[in-house]
């Protein structure tokens, strides 16, 4: 499924070196580590927003290391929900898939009736659900999650962790979560790796 071979990346300091990862279909893994250890950069390298210094990335046995981000089929959910302020919830979702079933996608994340809402009226948790619905509507081969629960309060975070996990499992969508919170990592993923 997703395979990272000897990924190395450094900016001013070395972030990660010779990092290997193998993700099976439907598997969810979590990567933990302290702030600044390169968790986010690793996800950005996998989805194509950053270039690794060396190493290669394969998706379904195809080398995607040099493919632009939009052609990889890898989705990413950012730490804070990135919703386009000039579009409604529906408009944001249609960006993921022009012909997608918006109502069904919103229902899946527990936000039925939110179709015509303006994005600025959403709470943090609702925004993150919309971002998830949009990412899933794009039907990614792998979904990457960059600490999407860190800005939410504990109760909401626990609920969203369970909800997102069950949606991903239902869809058999493989996912990689990075977080500094080991409890969230253990609750969300099938296995946990330290960076």
């Amino acid at each position: 499924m997703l395979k990272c071979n000897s990924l190395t990346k450094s900016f001013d300091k070395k972030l990660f070196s010779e990092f290997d990862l193998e993700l099976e279909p439907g598997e969810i893994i979590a990567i933990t580590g302290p702030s600044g250890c390169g968790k986010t950069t690793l996800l950005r390298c996998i989805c194509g927003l950053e270039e690794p210094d060396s190493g290669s990335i394969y998706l379904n046995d195809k080398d995607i290391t040099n493919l632009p981000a939009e052609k990889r089929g890898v989705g990413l959910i950012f730490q804070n929900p990135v919703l386009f302020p000039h579009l409604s919830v529906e408009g944001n979702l249609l960006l993921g898939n022009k012909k997608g079933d918006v109502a069904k996608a919103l229902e899946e994340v527990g936000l039925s009736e939110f179709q015509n809402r303006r994005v600025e009226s959403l709470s943090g948790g609702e925004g993150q659900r919309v971002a998830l619905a949009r990412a899933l509507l794009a039907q990614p081969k792998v979904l990457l999650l960059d600490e999407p629960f860190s800005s939410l309060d504990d109760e909401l975070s626990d609920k969203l962790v369970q909800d997102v996990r069950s949606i991903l499992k239902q869809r058999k969508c493989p996912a990689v979560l990075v977080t500094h919170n080991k409890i969230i990592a253990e609750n969300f993923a099938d296995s946990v790796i330290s960076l």
Partner: protein
Amino acid sequence: MKLRLSSSCAVIAYTLLVVVPLWLAIDRLIWVAGFDPLGWINSLNGNYISQGVVAFTFLQALLSTVVTLVIGLPIAWQLGRYKWPLQSLIKATLTMPFVMPSIVAAMGFLHLIGPSGLNIRIDDTTWFATLIIAHAWFNLALVIRFCEPVLSTLDPNLEEQMRLLPAGHSKIGRFRNLWVPLLAPSIAAAACMTFVFSFTSFALVRWITLGDNTLESVMANIGSSAGIPNYMLARNEIILGASLIQFTVLIASLWLMSWLQHRRQNLLPQASEFTVKRVNHSGWMIISPAVIFALSPLIAVFWASFRIRHTDSTGTSYSWETSGWEFAFAGSSSMSSAWDALWNSLGYAMITLCIALPLGWALAQTILDVEKERPKTARFLDVLTMIPFAASSVMIGLGVMLGMIRIDAEFFYSFWPTPVIAHVMITTPFVVRIMLPALRSLNPIYDECAQTLGIPAWRRFMSIRLPLLRGSILVAVIFTLAMSLGEFGASWVVTRNSDWTTLPIMIDSLRSIPYNNTYTAPAACAVSSVLMGITLLLFTWAEKFRPARDGGMF
């Protein structure tokens, strides 16, 4: 780092369109006059045409700056600190003079102080005072735009905290320890820009004073005989001397402005306008006269377009007619009609827009792309795009004219779009200044997020970038159109040897006709009213789309 193809094209196009004509012009002048910078400057006082011009230019610019601040600061304070009914309309009215073509302002003030208005036009002193007031009218918007946002959005906790400290117990203490330090960079930046605009004033000086000249108007007046070998050589030296002084002063002012603006943008704790502003009824004593001051010259122009003077053996009488409008739109064998001028102006403005908008946008994007990895290159490009600001419109006009003579005079003088070159030179830096802060404030995470959704580059541009930048793009479009339509200095120099009359040139030509023609002054006001109407329409439209806290000055 890979530079995009569009970036390379933009830099090359800008160099060809803007830098090369100016370089060709200077090269031509030096070729004719010889390289002697001190001699050029000395020639300004050694020649009767330009005697005293340097002193007059500095004096009127300094006085105009002081008077603008004296009038503008209380208005900015009232607008920024207190709630007003019809607040946005008041703000739009008070900032509107800045976008009015300077020749319209000149016509407005001429009629306001002339026999049909207040009738206070007496001697040199009243002319000079009128010029200073007209500059203050024109630049009032700068003080408001620079200072009002600081006042209206500053977190009130700062003032509340200051009240509780010994240094801020009194109003004077708070003024000295809070407001002066916070407002100083904005006031200084507004003063710098006011000085620049007053220093390069042309239409107002040309029409309001009794034959006084600034460096700008001297260059415009003698420009037609420049660049010709063995012909009036002293005039080339005067132009070079005037350009040298003007360029140095403007570069220094713009550098200071840019430094101050950078300081101004250092983040201050901000709050919503609703929590900052209070009600203040006595402030109407400042706001009402300010609104009347802003509107008077414009009303005077429109008013005067219908007032026809009749002189016969029994004396002078006036009647209300539309003959001035008819005269302007009918045209004659020696004067184009206002329709021709309107079509020329609209044509030039549209072509200017088609070139300046993509060019300015691409340049702004280039500066943004290179500034992370090559800050020095970005700074160089930034300064390069500001060259026309430091060159003034008449210098640009001369640049285009002398550049044309150098390349192929016959072709350019018969080529209708020639004035567009000058308009592009003048408007492109404004597009860069509007688009650069907008592009800087566009969070790259939107583009990254769209990439991870698999959206291709073209669709990302159309459905994400374009809508998010819509406000700034529209402001840039409207500003470019308004500036091109009202451009006077450069067009006056470039079109002098052609038949391509624009609206501002037609106003100037009508006013230049001897006063014994009853219809010329009302006709000039009629054409001014047309230009004023279009500008007002564009300005109102721009205000609607101006992004909140855009950080730009326009």
